[in-house]
């Protein structure tokens, strides 16, 4: 096959003397799989800035003959997987070079890759692990912002899952292969894949991309804290931090899970069967009592808000002006979010203190709305007074009109 290709290249190349890029010219004429890279390169982000085959594969594109692919001309052919990171890094790690094309692009990818699990295993000869082209593709590499790119935010989960969800491929690594399935059901996955909210995290937002590494048990809060900074700060200052480290529990993940993290609800808190607290705290423990007290504070505020919302809704439906109550209610709703965050202090006094003020606000709103409903009822009763007076005056007027009409009517003959 190689002999045939070489002969073809000689024949085709003979007629291509003087062509601008002999790689493109010959591979186009050869067709099929040998031409596929040429056609794929048309959309490649590198081709768009003037890079061509020889910039990665070496050789002499000005030479129309097969001698263009001579090793003496720097031809490297198809790079081995272990060599690819360095090959890409020749340009992507060179700040001066990259500045010419995209000054905003980082140039630490190769260094980061070498610290990653992928990079480390590749360095010791494991060629099954991901290298640059495994994720970015080859001959047709698109910018990550391009929705067709395998490393576009929306496509990252399936790109990682290409290897990580393949039990046969991952055999021997001792890690699960259900991450994608769990992620798709998680709150993050639902946001990104269903609601198409690109603000939601994909795999690389927690694990890193070029420096992909699973977070250790004592660094999970730092990872989750990238997006949930308040919860992180509260947790790190809480007594749970030291306790979790002592027990080797992976911080946030211990309660919320990792790939399958679901939307946190109040049911996770307290001492009910759905609570995560009772997994560690026995019924007669101090932590058990604290969990019950925190749940009670959160429930109290939530119920006060629900009652206020119902009353404001009724008053609004009746046509009463509830603008100021709506504003106060919104502040109570925001306080509920803060109180739910306060749970990460695991301090029932702090949680109750946060809830008390907002609960009072919600009750004030409810009372105000109920007062408005009472006033609405009163208005209806009071309206009967002028309406009755109008009816009375109208009746008198009508009687007067009839009397006047009778006066004007000629007497019957």
């Amino acid at each position, binding site marked *: 096959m190689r002999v045939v290709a070489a002969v073809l290249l000689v024949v085709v190349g003979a007629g291509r003397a003087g062509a601008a890029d002999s790689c493109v010219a010959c591979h186009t004429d050869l067709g099929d799989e040998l031409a596929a890279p040429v056609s794929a390169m048309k959309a490649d982000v590198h081709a768009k800035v003037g890079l061509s085959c020889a910039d990665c594969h070496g050789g002499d594109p000005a030479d129309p003959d097969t001698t263009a692919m001579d090793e003496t001309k720097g031809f490297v052919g198809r790079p081995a997987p272990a060599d690819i990171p360095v090959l890409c890094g020749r340009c992507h790690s060179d700040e001066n070079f990259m500045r010419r094309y995209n000054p905003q692009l980082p140039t630490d990818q190769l260094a980061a890759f070498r610290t990653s699990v992928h990079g480390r295993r590749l360095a010791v000869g494991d060629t099954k692990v991901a290298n640059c082209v495994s994720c970015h593709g080859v001959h047709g590499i698109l910018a990550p912002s391009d929705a067709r790119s395998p490393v576009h935010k929306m496509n990252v989960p399936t790109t990682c899952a290409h290897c990580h969800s393949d039990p046969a491929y991952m055999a021997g690594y001792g890690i699960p292969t259900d991450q994608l399935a769990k992620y798709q059901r998680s709150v993050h996955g639902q946001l990104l894949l269903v609601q198409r909210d690109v603000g939601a995290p994909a795999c690389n937002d927690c694990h890193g991309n070029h420096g992909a590494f699973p977070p250790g048990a004592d660094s999970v809060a730092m990872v989750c804290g990238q997006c949930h900074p308040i919860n992180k700060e509260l947790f790190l200052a809480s007594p749970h931090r030291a306790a979790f480290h002592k027990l080797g529990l992976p911080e946030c993940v211990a309660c919320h899970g990792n790939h399958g993290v679901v939307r946190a609800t109040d049911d996770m808190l307290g001492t009910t069967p759905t609570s995560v607290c009772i997994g560690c705290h026995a019924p007669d423990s101090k932590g058990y009592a604290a969990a019950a007290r925190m749940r009670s504070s959160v429930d109290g505020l939530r119920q006060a808000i629900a009652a206020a919302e119902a009353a404001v809704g009724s008053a609004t439906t009746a*046509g009463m*002006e509830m603008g*100021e109550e709506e504003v106060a209610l919104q502040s109570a709703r925001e306080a509920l979010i803060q109180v739910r965050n306060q749970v990460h202090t695991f301090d029932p006094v702090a949680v109750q203190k946060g809830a008390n003020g907002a609960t009072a606000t919600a009750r004030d709103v409810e009372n105000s709305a109920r007062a408005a409903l009472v006033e609405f009822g009163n*208005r*209806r009763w009071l309206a009967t007074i002028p309406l009755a007076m109008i009816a009375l005056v109208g009746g008198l007027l009508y009687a007067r009109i009839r009397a006047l009409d009778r006066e004007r009517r000629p007497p019957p003959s």
Partner: protein
Amino acid sequence: MNRVADWLDRRLHLRSVRDFLGHKLVPMHHHSIWYYLGGMTLFLFLVQVASGVLLLLYYRPAPESAFESIRFIVAHVPFGWLIRSVHAWAANLMVGAAFAHLFSVFFLKAYRPPRELTWMTGCVLMALTLAFGFSGYLLPWNELALFATKVGTDIVGATPLVGHWLRFVLRGGDDVTGATLTRFFGFHVALLPLLVTALLLVHFALVQVHGISQPIGASKSDRNMPFYPHFVLRELLVWLAVLAVLIGLATFMPWELGHKADPFASAPEGIRPEWYFTFMSQTLKYLPPTIAGMEGEHVGIIAFAMVALVLFVVPFLDRRAARDQPSLLVSLGGAVFLAFALTMTLLAYFRPY
């Protein structure tokens, strides 16, 4: 009591006025009921003036305070909710009464000579009433008002040749902003009341000069009643009924304030102008982008302007009515337009898209 009346009479000659009104006659026939619509519109205008003046005590016409000031009126000022609701309901009833008055005059052919000018001043008063409604709708500076005003001024902007300029003048800029609110407030409380009051006086003077029109075919020898006290008391009864309806509506169906306008928010669903403009906006929706080489909206606007113009000069076009002969063609034209406007309005509410 008599001494007070005598004292006043010596200075104001009230008895002569009463005698004059007592000798003024109102025709009585089976269409007399329509005579009360003009007075009803006047009553609602007076309600608007009174409630508007009271609202002015608290209203602040600026984007950062307009909505808040009305919320304050509704929530904290004693009976503020009633005044505001009465003002909003009476505005709508007044437009309805004015339309009913205009079409009753149209179908009774009361525009016949020598009452052409009465009709024409009435038409201008109708337009000014609509301008009152349009300018007042924006003043609460709520979500619906902002976007409805955008739609309304966009329709004005589709007027051929001068549309862009007119829209710019109305808005006080390229978009509906605080500048629009300020000038709409100016129109609503200064310019329009001045124009309407002046024209109303002319309208009444003309009614006084020419007397009340009788339908075609009604004999001069038909029954009459004295304007005072017979007709005045009947009119007063109508006003009382309208007042009762107003109080009932304002109390049992208070006019909503909605949410404060946010010029940067996207338009909420179901935005439409006030009901009396919906037949126009709905018609424009159905028009194709181009008609005979012109923009569809431009053609629609020209068509409505032509209808308004025909209506304005109908006393000069309806030659049969001028000769006291029934003019079925004109009546048919009016009925077709009325049916069209009614259909479009219903479509706007029940099948907007």
